[in-house]
C-alpha cells in the first residue's frame, strides 16, 4: 500500500472518484469541505472530514493554509488535488513538498512550466511538437497583437497566458475586433487568474480538439494511453467526449504517440498529463496546451484501456516504477462521456441549483455513472454546475451511442433542470452520428425546438 492516508483537496464527483480508488487500495481518506458542503457525498464517503472554510471557495477550497492545516491535523502522507481549484497551482504543490506531504501529481516545476500557456508553446516547439501558429510568447499590447495577426492572417484567437478551463479565450476577425477582444481577455484573465498576460494564435477553422493522455514515472519511463476527441464544447467548456477519435488512423496515432513520448521524457515530466491539440482537416496536429492534472474525462480512457488512472497516479506519486509499457496498451471498443450539468439548456444554460427530489441511476452493460448526487441532495449554488458524468462503453461507436441513448432515457434527476435533454438531442444529431464533429459544432446546434 503506497500511503496510509490521503487527503482529497476537492469536492463533488471528482473527490468521490479519487476516494473510490483509495478505498480499493486500502488507503484511508480525508475529505475537506466548505460549510456549504457539509452534506455532500464526498464528506460522507471519506473516513475523516475537516471543515476548511465558508462557502466562498477563495476561503475554503482555494485556501492553501486551511488545506495544509487540515492535512497537518489528520496526519496524511499525501494530497490529491483533483481537478480545478489548486490542482494546477505550482505554489500549492510546492507547499505540500515543503511540508513533507506528497502531492499526487506532477512536480511544481512541471506545473509551472506548462501553466504559462505562452511559455508551454515554446517549450513544446523546442521538443519537436509544433504549436498552433501564433505569437512567440506574450503580446504586450494591441500594437504587437496586430502585428502578429497580420503575419498569421485573420481570424486569430486571443488567449490568457495563465489560463485554463476555457476561460480567457476570444476570437478576432479584423483589427478593430482584435483591439476590442485584446482588452476584454486581459480583463477576464486578470479577474480569473490574477495575470493579464495574453498571447495570440491563428484560429484554425473546422478544427477538432484532440488530446492525448500521458503517464510518466520519475525514472524516465512514460506511456501514452491514446487520445480523446473533445470537440463538442460550449464556450470552450467540454460537454461530450469520446475515444477513439474516428478521424485518426492507427498510423497517425502511432506517430503522434512516438513524438509525444519523446517530448515528455525530454521535459522530465512526471505523473499524469494531457497534451491538447487542434487537428485541422488535413489531419495535421497543432499543440494547444498541456494540462498537468487528472482530467474530468479521464473516465473514457479508463473504459477503453481497462486501466485505473487515479490508482496509477497514486502509485507513481509513491515513487513506484511504471509497470506499463507502451506495447502493453490496448484500446478496446469505444467510449463516450456526457457531462451532466445542473443548468437549464433552454435558458442559455443558466445554472440551476436546488434540491434533487428524485434520482434514479441508469445501469446495465457498458454504463458508468460518476456522480456525487443522491436523492434529497441540495446542490449548493457556489461551485461549478457539473453534477454527473455519464459514460458508456461499447464494442464500437454505434454501440456506445446506443447505450448512451438508453442511459439518457433511463436516468432520472428531478427537482432541478439539467442538460440531459440537450445530450439526448446531440445523440440524435446527424453530424454527430456521422462523426462530423468540430469545435464549432454547437454554434449551429438548435437547443430548443
Amino acid at each position, binding site marked *: 500500500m503506497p500511503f496510509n492516508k490521503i487527503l482529497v483537496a476537492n469536492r463533488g464527483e471528482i473527490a468521490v472518484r479519487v476516494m473510490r480508488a483509495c478505498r480499493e487500495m486500502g488507503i484511508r481518506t480525508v475529505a475537506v469541505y466548505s*460549510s456549504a458542503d457539509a452534506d455532500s457525498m464526498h464528506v460522507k464517503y471519506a473516513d475523516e472530514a*475537516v*471543515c*476548511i*472554510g*465558508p462557502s*466562498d471557495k477563495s*476561503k*475554503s477550497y482555494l*485556501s*492553501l*493554509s*486551511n*488545506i*495544509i*492545516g*487540515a492535512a*497537518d*491535523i*489528520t496526519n496524511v502522507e499525501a494530497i490529491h488535488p483533483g481537478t480545478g481549484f489548486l490542482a494546477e497551482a505550482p*505554489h500549492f504543490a510546492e*507547499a505540500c513538498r*515543503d*511540508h513533507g506531504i506528497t502531492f499526487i501529481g506532477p512536480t511544481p516545476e512541471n506545473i509551472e512550466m506548462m501553466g504559462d500557456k505562452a511559455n508551454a508553446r515554446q517549450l513544446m516547439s523546442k521538443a519537436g511538437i509544433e504549436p498552433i501558429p501564433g505569437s512567440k510568447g506574450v503580446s504586450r499590447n494591441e500594437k504587437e497583437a496586430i502585428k502578429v495577426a497580420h503575419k498569421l492572417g485573420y481570424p486569430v484567437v486571443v488567449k490568457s497566458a495563465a489560463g485554463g478551463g476555457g476561460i480567457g479565450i476570444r476570437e478576432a476577425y479584423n483589427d478593430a475586433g482584435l483591439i476590442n477582444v485584446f482588452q476584454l481577455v486581459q480583463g477576464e484573465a486578470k479577474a480569473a487568474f490574477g495575470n493579464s498576460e495574453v498571447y495570440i494564435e491563428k484560429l484554425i477553422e473546422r478544427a477538432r480538439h484532440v488530446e492525448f493522455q500521458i503517464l510518466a514515472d520519475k525514472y524516465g519511463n512514460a506511456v501514452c494511453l491514446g487520445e480523446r476527441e473533445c470537440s463538442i464544447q460550449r464556450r470552450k467548456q467540454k460537454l461530450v467526449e469520446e475515444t477513439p477519435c474516428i478521424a485518426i488512423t492507427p498510423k497517425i496515432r502511432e506517430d503522434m504517440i512516438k513524438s509525444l513520448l519523446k517530448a515528455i521524457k525530454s521535459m522530465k515530466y512526471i505523473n499524469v498529463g494531457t497534451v491538447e491539440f487542434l487537428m485541422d482537416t488535413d489531419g495535421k496536429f497543432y499543440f494547444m496546451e498541456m494540462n498537468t492534472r487528472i482530467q474530468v474525462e479521464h473516465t473514457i480512457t479508463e473504459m477503453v484501456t481497462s486501466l485505473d488512472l487515479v490508482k496509477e497516479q497514486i502509485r507513481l506519486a509513491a515513487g513506484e516504477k511504471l509497470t506499463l509499457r507502451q506495447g502493453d496498451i490496448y484500446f478496446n471498443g469505444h467510449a463516450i462521456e456526457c457531462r451532466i450539468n445542473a443548468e437549464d439548456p433552454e435558458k442559455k444554460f443558466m445554472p440551476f441549483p436546488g434540491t434533487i427530489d428524485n434520482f434514479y441511476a441508469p445501469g446495465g452493460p457498458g454504463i458508468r455513472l460518476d456522480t456525487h448526487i443522491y436523492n434529497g441532495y441540495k446542490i449548493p449554488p457556489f461551485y461549478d454546475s457539473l453534477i454527473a458524468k455519464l459514460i458508456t462503453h461499447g464494442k464500437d461507436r454505434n454501440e456506445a451511442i446506443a447505450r448512451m441513448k438508453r442511459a439518457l432515457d433511463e436516468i432520472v434527476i428531478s427537482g432541478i433542470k439539467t442538460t440531459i435533454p440537450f445530450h439526448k438531442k446531440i445523440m440524435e444529431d446527424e453530424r454527430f452520428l456521422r462523426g462530423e464533429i468540430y469545435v464549432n459544432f454547437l454554434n449551429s446546434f438548435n437547443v430548443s425546438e
Partner: protein
Amino acid sequence: MPEKKGLDIETLKEIIKIMKENDLSEICIEQNGLKMQVKQGYNQPPHAVYNVPVQTVHEKTTSLAEPETNSDNSIFISAPMVGTFYEATKPGEKPYVKVGDSVTAGQVICIIEAMKIMNEITADMDCDILEIMVKNGQDIMFDDHLFRVRPKD
C-alpha cells in the same frame, strides 16, 4: 523624529510606544543613512510563509454568518481557520483568558497554529468568557466553537 545622528533611547522608547498603541508587530525606519528595524513578538518556531493572512486574525475578516445566540444570550466564538488550538503563547505560560474574564474587542484570546505559523485570534467585541469549548492542543476545523461568551452591551 528628532534630528540626531545615531540612535538614542528616547527615540527607541517612542517607537516601541507607537508599536504597542497601534498593535504593530514590526516597524522599519530609514532616515539620514540610518536604518532601523524593530520587531515585537513571542518566540516563533521557524516557519515557511506562503500567501497566508497576516498573523493577527480578526474574527470579522472571515465571512461568518451572524453568530447564533443561545437561549441565555451567549454566543459562540468560532474558529476562522483550521489548525491546532493553544490557550497560551507557549506551554507553561499563563493562558490568554480563563472562564470569568472580561475581554475587550481586539484582545487576543487564543492562538491557532497552522502550517507552523502561530495565528493570534482576537475577540471582535467586548464580552465575558463563559466557557472554553476546546482543550489546549486540540485540533480544530473551520467553524468549531472555541469560546462561549456573553457580549457586553
